[in-house]
């Protein structure tokens, strides 16, 4: 096998990582409903075990090659030439790890806050984890789509069952929004499958060249799915509702992993499969990204709801990610990937943090807080670190990602780079405003006497702080994973020759 490096370990590590949570979910399924504590411990144990197993990926990964590693391939549905085909490369491996880590945090943060339907909740969390990891590991389109869509089920329930007051609307909106995008991608996948001589093998599909017009169509079909997930402007409006209404763990999963899938999709599929179309559509993508950055940032200034603000900030931050990806240069791409990771860590952490106070006050209104730094100083310190990471202060992970993206974006298109920079200014504006309203100024009567974080909550946040600083101070330990893969991706994108970019012409062509 030259294309990939088969799994050399004595056990199928990716399958193990994917299906351990499922196993945990099954275990929970057969426990008695009244044994809630056991349920929680099973969930925690499974997720920790998954993470420990996944660490092997981190240590055994060969950073010198772009090839897929730890590959497992088994025939699955021979009738359709579908294989059970797993593997990771430098682009996906970090997300596998992040997903596994997020699962632990989600279980921990929900420990006391989920009181109803405990069993179902942890089953949903574990299933989501499994499917998310599956999405990042799949090398077969069918398998990918299976995980991609299947994840909607537990996620729909997490938002809809354990969410806030407006949860039903949010859940259905989330579900339909993403479904509409995904089904269009499904059509695209089938077209590819048939064009490539009935193959769902992603790696094989990447080696083929597709006619330009077809690329354009397919690019937009995939765009529909990925843009909704990212979410790019103007299909972002599910996100504030879903993030806001979801329970803490749900918001964390959404922010940390789920919306990364869209950007991951661009990287894994749109760019290598449709290089010419991607290049031709770069101006459009950059425009949308810049709009998302500024729009998302400005809209944050007018929020009164804590989670909603963070949700909108995700729109802005993911705008950076897409900007980096479509900068189509190495800094942009690596920055984009790193920023996906960063955003997962930081926004995940912010949602966890919000969850911590929400458990105490049951209010998401910014106006209900104030002077919290006096009442909960440790919490304030943690939150400050995440705030700073969110505004991209040097020394935190946010800086590395944003800097690389902006550098890449600036190199690709100066205007886009300059406009995106304004997003950083506004970003500082709303995050500090938020921090001030919540932690500074006079102590709000409603929060007097709140206990500071307990051990469990601290343990939940500490890994994220470590990551924030680790990536901020020594990003190379993560960047080094990407180099080979990103380089390879760029070669693939640039191999097609530079397509002269003319938006009006391409749009006309699409219409025609």
């Amino acid at each position, binding site marked *: 096998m030259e294309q990939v490096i088969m799994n050399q370990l004595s056990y199928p590590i990716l399958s193990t990582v994917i299906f351990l949570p499922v196993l945990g979910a099954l275990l929970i399924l057969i426990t008695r409903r009244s044994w809630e504590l056991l349920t929680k411990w099973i969930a925690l144990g499974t997720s920790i075990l998954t993470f420990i197993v996944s660490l092997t990926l981190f240590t055994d990964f060969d950073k010198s090659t772009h090839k897929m590693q730890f590959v497992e391939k088994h025939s699955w549905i021979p009738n359709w030439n579908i294989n059970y085909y797993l593997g990771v490369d430098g682009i996906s491996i970090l997300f596998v790890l992040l997903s596994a880590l997020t699962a632990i945090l989600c279980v921990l943060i929900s420990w006391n806050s989920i009181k109803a339907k405990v069993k179902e909740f942890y089953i949903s969390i574990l299933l989501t984890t499994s499917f998310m990891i599956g999405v990042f590991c799949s090398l077969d389109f069918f398998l990918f789509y299976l995980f991609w869509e299947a994840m909607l089920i537990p996620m729909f329930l997490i938002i*809809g069952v354990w969410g806030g007051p407006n949860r039903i609307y949010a859940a259905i909106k989330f579900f339909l929004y993403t479904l509409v995008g995904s089904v269009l991608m499904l059509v695209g996948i089938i077209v590819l499958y048939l064009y490539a001589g009935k193959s769902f093998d992603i790696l094989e599909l990447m080696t083929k060249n597709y006619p330009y017009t077809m690329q354009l169509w397919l690019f937009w079909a995939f765009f529909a799915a990925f843009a909704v997930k990212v979410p790019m402007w103007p299909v972002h409006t599910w996100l504030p509702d879903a993030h806001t209404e979801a329970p803490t763990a749900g918001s964390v999963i959404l922010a940390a992993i789920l919306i990364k899938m869209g950007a991951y999709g661009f990287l894994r599929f749109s760019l290598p499969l449709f290089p010419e179309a991607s290049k031709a559509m770069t101006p459009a993508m950059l425009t949308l990204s810049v709009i998302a950055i500024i729009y998302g940032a400005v809209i944050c200034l007018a929020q009164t709801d804590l989670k909603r603000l963070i949700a909108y900030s995700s729109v802005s931050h993911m705008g950076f990610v897409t900007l980096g990806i479509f900068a189509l240069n190495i800094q942009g791409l690596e920055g984009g990937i790193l920023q996906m990771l960063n955003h997962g860590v930081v926004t995940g952490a912010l949602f966890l943090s919000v969850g911590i106070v929400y458990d105490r006050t049951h209010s998401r209104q910014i106006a209900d807080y104030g002077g919290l730094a006096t009442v909960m100083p440790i919490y304030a310190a943690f939150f400050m670190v995440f705030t700073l990471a969110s505004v991209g202060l040097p020394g935190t992970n946010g800086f590395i990602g944003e800097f690389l993206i902006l550098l890449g974006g600036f190199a690709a298109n100066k205007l886009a780079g300059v406009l995106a920079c304004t997003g950083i200014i506004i970003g500082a504006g709303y995050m500090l405003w938020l921090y001030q309203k919540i932690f500074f100024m006079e102590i709000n009567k409603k929060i007097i006497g709140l206990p500071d974080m307990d051990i469990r909550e601290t343990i939940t946040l500490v890994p994220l702080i470590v990551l924030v600083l680790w990536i901020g101070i020594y990003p190379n330990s993560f960047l080094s994973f990407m180099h080979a893969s990103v380089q390879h991706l760029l070669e693939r994108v640039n191999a097609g020759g530079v397509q002269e970019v003319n938006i009006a012409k391409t749009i006309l062509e699409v219409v025609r």
Partner: protein
Amino acid sequence: MNFQLPNLSPMVPELTMTALALIVLLIDLLIKKKEILALISMAGVAIVAVTLLGSSGVTFGNMFISDGYSSFFKLIFFINVILSVLISIKYIAIERVNYGEYYSLILFSTIGMMIMASAGDLIVLYLGLELMALSTYILAGFIRHDVKSNEAALKYFLLGAFSSAFLLYGISIVYGLTGTTDLKAIASFISEKGLANNFSLLLSVIFLTVAFGFKIAAAPFHMWAPDVYEGAPTSITAFMSVGPKAAGFAVLGRVFMVAFVSVKVDWVAILIPLSILTMAVGNIVALSQTNIKRMLAYSSIAHAGYALLGIITANNEGLASMMNYLMIYAFMNIGAFAVIIMLRSEGFKGDSIYDYEGLSKTHPWAAALMLIFMFSLTGIPPTAGFIGKLYIFISAINAGYTWLVVVAVIFSAISAYFYMRIVMYMYMREPKVTVTLSTSLPTDFALVITTVAVLVIGVFPSFLVGLARAAIRGF
């Protein structure tokens, strides 16, 4: 003139089935416990299913064709019968219509479907269709003390008779044009005489489309479906949302693909708007339903629209995908009805979607299963519904109908809303009424079968897909 008995071996399943129906009818006179009839029926059908294996061949001068195609459909019918009977046992007792005729009529109806699936001649096709339809009319009105059931039967009957008049008229024109009613002979006659451009032929195609469209509940011939599904006994609703629909597809596929293959372009052009309309009407009107049976009726209409894509592709792969879809639909739809039927208990209708509020709290297992079926009907992996749709879409795109698939997926996304609404009521609302589930062993059994099938096919569709492909090979 010597009369030679034709070779009966290809129709052993039909003969066995008829014998079974008659036996059930007779035993009904002897025993009080009607549940035994159900057992006999199911066991009998299982035996009949076994006889399918050695039954390929053509007999009665092409009037009866037993090939992979028909056998696959018969398999769907058998699964339909077994599952419907399983969910009926408790239900008809609750409805106080625990009569033995119920089972024999189901069997007769199934015989009708089998005849349709095997029909190689329009005459036989018509008679099979009538046998199926008449039995189903009766079954729809089986709860004769219930006005809704009467009404369902009446509407079904009136419109069914109306549509079969169209069928007959169409047959008469084909007969006049070709001088025969044999499907293969019609095909060869049309291509020999170059009748493909004859408007009369198209007229007859259209009339047959009307009739078959009625059976599969394709818009605008679907109007009976919601009322009849709502009024009929729930078990029968389950039965006829799968059986007659599959039979309709069977004859649609065979007649159009065999007899009218020369006018493929035309009937494809007719079926495309029909399928779009069907998906549109089914999915859109389902959005505003409050009765779950009615909602599933519209859903069933919509699914007919998807399955039509398989016919529209007008090739073997398309037919295979359509067959695959119907098989999957049988499992998921009857599964859903099995849950619905459990909600019906003495003095409680349980067919409003509001009755599902908070079901996950009071009956988590039932809710979980309903959840699986709803997601399957939506077509979300890893359930069977996704496989069904995927196969349909693959074959349609392969035939060049990408735009049609885009339409279909958009409607399928719309459909998610009403399926999700049920999930939402079950999981995200608090219970308002106390629902007691009328569980019984057979229903549980049916649920186990359908759930396992939905999930297993969802993850390992290979066997089923292979079966459908193998079945279509000799078409």
